[in-house]
């Protein structure tokens, strides 16, 4: 890999750019630099934001010289090595497909000339890469969905989509972390909380994780949901931190 480009983003941030495409290898370079820069704990650096293809480095402009920071980042990049594949997490996301949890599953099946069971099998039969978080708190940009279940967005977006909904929009699949309006085709729902501001870290997933959707029954959905809720209650009472 050639050295990245380092671009000015005003007087308080630099962008370390590895390319302009969606590519797991390129994203791995971004994450390797992210991890290495975090370990380096560069004084004056306030935030590191990994994306598909670049790392945004925010710094305190009163104490940090961008030329020196640029040199330091290039040094760290040259020495960063590659990420240990064994260190990446596989996060299983239990998902109830169809029915009230995924009202658009029949449409996605029809659109692709498949049965509902085949859509579930294809969607849950692949591991997805979390390229980055963004769009809304805790929202994972997932890569790796089979084109066999690609489906256009709804023509009229829904006003309120429940948190945890798993959807498809064109070639992408995603999970809504919080209740929000949206136009994705909903095929299922997970009882896990993707974002909880009282948790550390607040997001369930992070860039570089692998995600596997695991089909569960409605009964299992409600059982896990009760568990998640009592865990949150315990957290709210202050005794859940160690649990």
């Amino acid at each position, binding site marked *: 890999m050639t050295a990245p480009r380092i*671009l*000015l*983003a*005003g*007087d*308080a*941030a630099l*962008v370390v*750019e590895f390319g*302009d*495409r*969606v590519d797991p290898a390129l994203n791995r370079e971004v994450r390797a630099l992210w991890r290495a820069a975090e370990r380096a704990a560069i004084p004056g650096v*306030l*935030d*590191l*934001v*990994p*994306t*598909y*293809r*670049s*790392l*945004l480095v*925010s710094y305190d*402009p*009163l104490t940090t010289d*961008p030329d020196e920071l640029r040199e330091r980042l290039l040094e760290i990049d040259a020495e960063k090595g590659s990420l240990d594949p064994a260190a990446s997490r596989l996060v299983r996301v239990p998902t109830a497909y169809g029915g009230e949890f995924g009202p658009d599953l029949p449409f996605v099946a029809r659109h692709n000339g498949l049965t509902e069971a085949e859509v579930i099998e294809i969607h849950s039969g692949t591991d997805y890469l979390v390229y*980055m*978080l*963004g*769009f*809304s*708190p*805790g*929202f994972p*940009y997932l890569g790796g969905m089979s084109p066999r279940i690609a489906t256009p967005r709804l023509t009229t977006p829904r006003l309120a989509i429940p948190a945890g909904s798993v959807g498809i929009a064109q070639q992408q699949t995603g999970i809504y*972390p*919080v209740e929000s309006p949206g136009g994705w085709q909903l095929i299922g729902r997970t009882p896990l909380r993707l*974002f909880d*501001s*009282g948790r550390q*870290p*607040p*997001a369930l997933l*992070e*860039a570089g994780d692998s995600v596997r959707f695991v089909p569960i029954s409605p009964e299992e959905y409600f059982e896990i949901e009760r568990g998640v809720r009592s865990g949150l209650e315990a957290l709210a009472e202050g005794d859940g931190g160690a649990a």
Partner: protein
Amino acid sequence: MIVARVLDGGLFTTVQDLGRVGCMRYGVPPSGAMDRAACLAANALAGNAPDAAVLELTLVGPRLEFTAPATIALAGANLGAHLDDEPFGCWRAATVRAGQTLWFAGPEDGARACLAVHGGIDVPIVLGSRSTYTRARLGGLDGRPLAAGDRLEIAGDVPRILADARQLDPAECPVYGHAHDIRVIPGPQDDRFTPAGMATFLSSTYTVGAGADRMGYRLAGPRIELADGADIVSDGSPAGGVQVTGDGQPIVLMADRGTAGGYVKIATVITVDIGRLAQAVPGDTVRFRAVTIAEARTALREHAAWLERIGSTVTGTAGATAAARRRRAAAAAAAAVARILAGR
């Protein structure tokens, strides 16, 4: 303790501080006061720490009835503040009595004011900050703007009063006006624009659109020519980033911006001018001027010195007294060290 009842929330009044640091990786924007200088100044005048939470008022301020004595300070936009029947000037602190009402007649200069209460507005800290991010209902007062019936609280259970009313020298108070000269540094994607596109951006007058809010300032004006379309694979959103959409119009990314975006960014507003842009109201005009990093740093240092002066030269302040005491103590310590070393 409760210091005030909200009789009317105003247009969009939220609790803000200096924002969340280190949460963009989770998709959580920094939020915080749009005009940081106004937040810092209000806190300095009210005798607070710089990161105390304040109310950020937008164009139409709230109506607050104080239920306990309190020292309050206003900085930033002049929104026509009144305490009961008397005008309440901006960039000053004053002690109010229980039963008095603070209200706002309407915007006179600027868009956003910060109202600090001595002791700091007390709401739970969420992800390291008290700032409100309404889109995800995070922080502040249940993650939403103030509404009638809300109560404002400060920490502790006794009223906190600052002995002397502080006021900024009127010569030091900013005037925002309606034509804004905003300095930018080209990039990060300036190479995605034609030379003519960059020239248009830097020589034209843009108008602030009606939808300008905490997320972004959408501007309208001459079309900025793109070299190769407006779309990029999403990358991080810096504060003040100037996105250009497919129709060639700029949007400046503000405190509640999406953490990543897929539009090309022609330039980035320098730190000092982000807060000045936040004082622009719909219909105001903006002209962008390219500067170097060195010029941006000089502007930032001057700005920091100005803020320092607010913290120390305001009339008769407890803070300044403490600072003077610290300076005297430091000088005495330095003299003692020099005396001892002189004998060796």
